[in-house]
């Protein structure tokens, strides 16, 4: 039925019974338990903690009661109702005035917005046509002005070119005149020299003869 007989089982149990811990381990365990128990004294157990809860609750209730009584006793005497009403009125007035004003402004703005919304498309169309017309007029005027300006500039340019051409012709004429006068003088001088030389040669021939 089983691979382990009673003797083997008893042998095993006996071996277990002969296991002994070391003295050091035993002392260490005892010291550890002793320390734990000593420290545990300082720590309240769960049961003690449970007992503390009603005490703490009672203390809290007492504290709240004392605080309430102190508050009631130290409270100022009854106030003047009329003054309080006036103060309240002023306070409400100052706080409500700005709010009401703002709400009125908002309401007006909304109404204006809704009234303008209907005319919006028509206004947009008219505005577009007006702007297109204005732009056409402006373009036409600009083109005319630019054309006139260009013509004027061209005419000035032509005039300046003509003046420059006349001046150049005058200079060329003066140069030719000068050159002509100088050429004439040269010819006269050359003729005189030629005559002079011819006269000299004739005299020499006569003397030789």
């Amino acid at each position, binding site marked *: *039925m*089983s*691979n*382990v*007989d*009673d003797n083997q*089982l*008893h042998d*095993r*149990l*006996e*071996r*277990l*019974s*002969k*296991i*002994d*811990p*070391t003295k050091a*381990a*035993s002392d*260490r*365990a*005892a010291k*550890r*338990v*002793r320390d*734990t*128990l*000593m420290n*545990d*004294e300082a720590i309240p*157990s*769960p*049961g*003690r903690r449970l007992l503390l809860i009603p005490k703490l609750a009672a203390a809290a209730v007492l504290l709240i009661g004392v605080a309430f009584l102190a508050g009631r006793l130290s409270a100022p005497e009854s106030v003047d109702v009329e003054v309080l009403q006036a103060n309240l009125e002023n306070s409400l007035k100052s706080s409500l005035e700005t709010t009401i004003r703002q709400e009125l402004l908002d309401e007006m703005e909304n109404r204006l917005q809704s009234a303008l919304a209907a005319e919006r498309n028509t206004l947009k169309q008219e505005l577009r046509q007006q702007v297109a017309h204005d732009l056409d007029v402006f373009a036409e005027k600009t083109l005319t002005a630019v054309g006139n300006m260009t013509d004027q500039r061209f005419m000035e340019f032509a005039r300046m070119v003509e003046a420059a051409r006349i001046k150049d012709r005058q200079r060329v004429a003066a140069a030719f005149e000068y050159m002509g006068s100088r050429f004439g003088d040269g010819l006269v001088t050359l003729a005189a020299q030629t005559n002079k030389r011819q006269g000299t040669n004739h005299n020499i021939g006569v003397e030789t003869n």
Partner: protein
Amino acid sequence: MKNRHKELLGLLDTSGAELFALLTRLTLREDIAEELMQDLFIKLSHSKGLDKATNRRAYARKAAINLAFDWRRSHRRAALRLQRVRRQASNDDSPLTQMMHSEELRETLDALAQLKKASREALVMRYIQQESYDHIAEQMGKTSHQVRAMCSRAVQHLRRIVGSNHRHHNI
């Protein structure tokens, strides 16, 4: 509360070494036995059962056995690390033999953990703590005959558990 601590310190002085040895035998580890020893006394310091117990030493031992087997159940695969297992009669002291012996002890303790609490307590007291039937009967509030019968039945049951474990391993 101070009185409880005084009582526990007294119990520690009188039975501390015995309880620690029992925890070491049941866990096969001194470090775990130390942990469980501390847990045991913390448990006892908050236990209402200790006040009602007529024999506080027996109550503490029972709590120690339960703690040890609870630990065994949650750490079944824990390795055997105890250094001071006494040598066996066999001349063969090879590491393999030592390992097999350790494995056998572990197996026996795991089988013990599967017994009912009363049977397990009786077996532990009789065979691991080597106490007499009369003493066990006195501690458990039973007659000597009842304890003897209980131990006998528990051994048979233990043998069946170990045997079935062997068959599972062989399969």
